[in-house]
């Protein structure tokens, strides 16, 4: 048995080096893959025959009121409770410091009795300022895309479909501005969910709430159209419904998560790298080659349709489109050799942008659902930093030199290398960046930059070791207790390959956007649209199967799952069966 395990371990294809994978710029070029949580959730819902139904719909002619959706799984019953309220335009901001939103909502475990509904109605609309019920698994809020909302309601009320162009430009009717889980403001702890078979994947409860909100956004727009013009109003065409996602607006608040949860990040990146290694080691078939060509074409069209305001992102997208154009004819003509995928990634790494390299990697992973999807089960982990107090200090020193060489290499005497500091503002504890030596608050700096901490601890350890050559880790820490947390992290993370982001978060050239994109890609966000250096809008579930398709209990789960890199269905007035969109690239 042990021999078999060892044999299996020996035959696992090699993964890429952490120094390459965990480079911040590379992480900032990731795109969602079939392991992203939005994709995993849709697969799980279909596999387990989840049903989502509207239980209560009490909106007035302005679209304000309350709506409840039921989510029935084989293991339990949940409800998404939505509160839609009037909002003055001058109050509509996506910043975390906002106090009011167009709508607020929560995912509740179990049934919503009258008394619970009253409690939710009093508190969910207040979000952070409320005291939330422990049966809430998730709370969130969202603001309207005013422009799209008006276009949609007007068109539908007039018996027309809204122009596809409107969704191409903004892929949603609502964008969430924060989606809270894990005990925030009194809601259920993650500990409640970790043994729940419905939500055992990271962020699956949050993704469920957002997915149901997408359905609400469609039904609310149709409701408004019917009220505005009952005689002429029409429902939204299925193709457009499917092309509509839910937006999300994210700022620096997402960045600390990546630093504070390195064990979780390790699981995510490890799963992706393992998937890539498995994919690259497969012997390609003609069918796989055609599938990859089809996926490249789809990804190319998705990027071509993606409208972003940011000039740099536009350049990056255009470059990826051009580089995919280089790959397509090569892939069509090249001989089908056993190591074709390795040839492809070698070429891409040597000659193409990091964005294109990671796009190709994501598409290769897409080719092999069976071995890859098993890795979903490895993406959660119980996190704990633990000391090894009996580790000889000389061993710890060697560990730092081997595993944290990237941190030791940084020259912190250079003012550019210690330019930024991270802090939390009194305004809703919003994470912000300040300039060291110029902005106030440096004495309250958040310890998010790992490299300078590792260097500090390493230097202290070196001098202690010189005086105490046989010392253990605990001897050093009893003498220098301030280094405990850093040493504990080093010892814990030394057991992992992909947990630490290998970059200097103090450096003047550091781009926080890369941090945001890392997490967003694993969540499954598309249409990455930076608004400056610290703010980004993305879209979830664009192209994902609709609630009615899910409730129809699909039998072809492979086709059901094939909704990545959605692009527009053409003019919706040429109505198309949404199930045909997925495989038929001629619709591009």
């Amino acid at each position, binding site marked *: 048995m042990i021999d078999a395990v060892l044999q299996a371990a020996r035959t696992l294809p090699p993964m890429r080096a952490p120094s390459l994978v965990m480079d911040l710029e590379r992480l900032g070029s990731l795109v969602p893959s079939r392991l992203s949580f939005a994709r995993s959730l849709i697969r799980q819902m279909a596999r387990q025959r989840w049903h989502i139904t509207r239980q209560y719909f009490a909106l007035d002619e302005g679209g304000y009121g309350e709506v409840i959706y039921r989510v029935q799984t084989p293991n339990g019953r949940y409800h998404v409770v939505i509160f839609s309220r009037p909002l003055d335009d001058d109050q509509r901001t996506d910043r975390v410091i906002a106090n009011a939103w167009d709508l607020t909502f929560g995912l509740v475990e179990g049934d919503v009795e009258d008394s619970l509904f009253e409690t939710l109605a009093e508190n969910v609309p207040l979000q952070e300022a409320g005291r939330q019920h422990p049966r809430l698994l998730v709370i969130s809020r969202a603001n309207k895309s005013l422009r799209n909302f008006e276009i949609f309601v007007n068109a539908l009320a007039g018996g027309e479909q809204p122009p596809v162009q409107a969704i191409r430009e903004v892929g949603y009717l609502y964008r969430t501005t924060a989606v809270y889980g894990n*005990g925030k403001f009194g809601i259920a702890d993650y500990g409640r969910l970790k043994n729940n078979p419905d939500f055992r994947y990271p962020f699956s409860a949050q993704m469920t709430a957002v997915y149901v909100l997408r359905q609400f956004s469609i039904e609310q727009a149709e409701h408004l159209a019917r009220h505005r013009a009952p005689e002429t109003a029409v429902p939204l065409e299925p193709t457009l419904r499917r092309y509509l996602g839910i937006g999300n607006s994210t700022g620096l608040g997402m960045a600390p998560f990546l630093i504070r949860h390195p064990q979780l990040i390790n699981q995510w990146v490890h799963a992706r790298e393992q998937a890539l290694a498995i994919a690259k080691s497969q012997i390609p078939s003609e069918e796989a080659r055609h599938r990859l060509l089809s996926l490249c074409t789809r990804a190319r069209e998705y990027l071509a349709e993606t409208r972003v305001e940011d000039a740099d992102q536009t350049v990056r997208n255009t470059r990826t489109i051009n580089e995919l154009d280089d790959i397509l004819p090569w892939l069509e003509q090249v001989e089908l050799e056993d190591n074709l995928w390795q040839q492809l990634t070698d070429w891409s790494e040597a000659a193409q942008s990091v964005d294109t390299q990671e796009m190709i990697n994501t598409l290769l992973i897409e080719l092999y659902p069976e071995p890859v999807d098993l890795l979903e089960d490895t993406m959660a982990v119980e996190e704990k930093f633990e000391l090894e*107090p*009996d580790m000889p200090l000389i061993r710890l020193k060697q560990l730092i030199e081997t595993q944290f060489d990237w941190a030791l290499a940084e020259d912190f005497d250079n003012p550019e290398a210690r330019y930024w500091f991270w802090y939390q503002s009194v305004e809703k504890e919003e994470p912000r960046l300040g300039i060291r030596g110029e902005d106030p608050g440096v004495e309250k700096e958040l310890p998010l930059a790992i490299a300078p901490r590792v260097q500090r601890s390493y230097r202290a350890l070196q001098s202690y070791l010189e005086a105490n050559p046989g010392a253990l880790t605990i001897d050093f820490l009893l003498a220098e207790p301030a280094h405990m947390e850093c040493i504990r992290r080093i010892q814990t993370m030394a057991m992992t390959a992909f947990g630490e982001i290998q970059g200097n978060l103090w450096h003047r050239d550091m781009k926080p956007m890369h941090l945001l994109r890392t997490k967003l890609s694993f969540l499954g966000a598309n249409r990455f649209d930076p608004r*400056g250096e610290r703010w980004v809008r993305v879209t979830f579930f664009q192209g994902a199967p609709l609630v009615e398709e899910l409730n129809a209990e699909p039998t072809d789960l492979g086709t059901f799952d094939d909704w990545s890199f959605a692009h527009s269905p053409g003019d919706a007035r040429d109505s198309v069966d949404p199930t045909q969109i997925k495989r038929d690239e001629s619709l591009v």
Partner: protein
Amino acid sequence: MKVSFNELQALSRKAFMGIGFAEGHADDAADMVTWMESYDLHGLEALNRGLEHLMNSDPDTRPEILYQDSDLAVVDGHHLSVLRASNLALELAFAKARSRGLSVIKIRRCHQRQLIMGYLARLSARGMNITAFWRNAHDPLTEQVVGFRANSTVPSIRVYAVEEVPEENEANDGITLVMANHVDLLPTMRSDYRYDLLAKHEESELLAVRERAMTSGIEVTPELWLRLKQLAHVTLVESFDASRLGAGPAE
């Protein structure tokens, strides 16, 4: 008011940072308090009682090793709370037990000893059998024994009053801990002397309490919650128009 486990842990951590705990030590202290409270072992009550003491103790005062050899250590807690004085001392005992099979450590002169259980749970989860012993009161004389089985996160607890007080009954504000790599050290009451069992918590009973806390939340007085928030506030940076740009321009 009800709060979640995670919420209590996060706010406690920030409050300890506000008091002046170093990073990591604040996490440990918060974990110890929250662990106690999640098992309904009055962690918040102990914290509330000791908060002024914690705030008034010099952040530069550290526990001091008075004696150590391969198996044994005596630590002076310098009248600090165990929230400040115990984590590294316990790691020392852990290291010795790993190396020698069994270790004994005495932490003298420390406060809020009840709260040490949270850190013991952590060491036990790392595969260590642990027994901790201390005296709660001297008139009447009460003693407490807490035992963790290796890899279990919940202890067996016995609290009892001793009727036949020994002649030598000097106030004892220390804790004695025994750690063993391989041997169960759970407390079992067996004595030739008379005693009254005041409290007995079994592992199964504690697990049920924990489950309730995770389902229904943890009760905190609004006053203590506010106090923790005030302490945590010290870690935040005042906001002004320019600082809002530190999170990027408004959309």
